[in-house]
């Protein structure tokens, strides 16, 4: 087993407010971690720190053996990140945009066309390949956001609420895609849909007010209690 993400004692303050407090976990190849928590619990902050978009106040992040603090370029090379708002240039066509993303991630020139086509196929974007991103529906834009993160075939894929705004069929497609990606890569994604975690993930991580309250394998969860009941229990303790 290769460790793809190793986060140690991450802490992040916004002013005096502590958004993430002493969070540690690991992600290994072949794992899909579902990241759960109520709004404002610190999910997005944690994911942003993992991608190097936000510097932690303390703690250490190692991606695929490279420290995010001291060797950010090497660490980011193994990362694909889908933020909660997909970062899209609306005046480009899907193909142009994915080509640019592949270039930014250092995909060799000769492989770019193939990488773009593969990402488009995986995310069901082939038929809109030539269209301008700004003219596409939210569902398509969300899928372009995912395509952008997998175009360079990264080892680690981080998704922030990837299934928001998709229709039921698309949700199933994206779940299948995540499952497929999870076999050869490591995936961590945040979500509010508990059933998604139950059927898709190998592991679950729950965060409450910036602190990890549950870190477990899905298979090892107590059988008599559903994930939903567990979530409600854990989240209500502090209230």
């Amino acid at each position, binding site marked *: 087993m290769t460790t793809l993400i190793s986060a140690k004692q991450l802490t992040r303050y*916004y002013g005096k407010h502590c958004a993430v407090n002493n969070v540690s976990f690991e992600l290994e190849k072949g794992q899909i971690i579902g990241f759960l928590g109520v709004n404002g619990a610190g999910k997005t902050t944690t994911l942003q720190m993992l991608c190097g978009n936000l*510097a932690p106040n303390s703690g250490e992040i190692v991606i695929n053996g490279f420290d995010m603090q001291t060797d950010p370029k090497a660490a980011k090379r193994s990362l694909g990140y889908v933020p909660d708002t997909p970062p899209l240039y609306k005046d480009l066509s899907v193909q142009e945009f994915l080509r640019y993303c592949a270039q*930014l*991630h250092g995909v060799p020139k000769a492989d770019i066309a193939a990488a773009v086509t593969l990402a488009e196929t995986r995310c069901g974007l082939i038929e809109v390949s030539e269209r301008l991103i700004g003219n596409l529906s939210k569902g398509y834009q969300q899928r372009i956001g995912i395509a952008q993160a997998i175009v360079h075939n990264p080892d680690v894929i981080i998704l922030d609420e990837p299934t928001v705004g998709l229709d039921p069929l698309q949700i199933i497609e994206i779940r299948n895609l995540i499952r497929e990606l999870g076999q050869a890569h490591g995936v961590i994604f945040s979500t509010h849909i508990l059933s998604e975690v139950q059927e898709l993930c190998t592991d679950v991580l729950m965060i409450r007010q910036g602190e990890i309250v549950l870190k477990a394998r899905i298979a090892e969860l107590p059988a008599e209690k559903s994930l939903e009941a567990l979530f409600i229990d854990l989240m209500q303790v502090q209230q």
Partner: protein
Amino acid sequence: MNMIVTIAAREFKSLFLSPLAWTILAILQFILAFLFLTQVENFTLLQPQLATMENAPSLTDITVTPLFGNAAIILLLVSPLLTMRLICEERRNKTLTLLLSAPLSNAEIIIGKYLGSLGLLATIVALITLMPLSLLIGGTLDFGKLFANVLALLLLSGAFAAIGLFMSCLANHPTVAAMSAFGAMFVLWILDWSAGLADKPSGLFQYLSILRHFQAIQSGLLATSDVSYFLLFISLFLLLSVRRLDKERLQK
């Protein structure tokens, strides 16, 4: 290096995807062509007198120098519009995340963005240079002086782009970035005037004035001190922009 070229090329192409770049090119060209025509007209009127004078100003002095001087003033007004969106808009549209999570250093992002916008400004300078070159059909030009003017305008637009980029890193809204960039450039432009107001001119203000260095190069006196003023100016603001982008990760 590769990444810088990628970002610069993307930025340059993006400018042409919106009507902004085309509009600016068209309007600038129209205004400057009109001013240039007036200068050529002037020259034909003055020609009989010039023929009798000793050390008379040449065709280049009468047409090229005012043309590039006018172009500098117009670029002062226009370049903030070109640079205001560089970082600011990416931050607003949340696309900055794409660059920040890609394996790029902040210096690569900043220099790429800078070169992309400089590409458009260089295109403008090239189009302006075509006007005096058209005089070659019926006259001769002092190429040394023309070169000095082109260089002066290029350095000046380089400085404008750098300060505009920095303001775009600071501001949260493109119009704020444009206004601050214009303000900063304008102050540097007129600094020289206030230096002349007092009885004895202030050496510091004179040195800081961007206009003085621009005109010095324009006159054909290519001094290292003037060229290095611009290069220092550009490096300083690029460095500040990189620092500002570093801060993006620390605070939000």
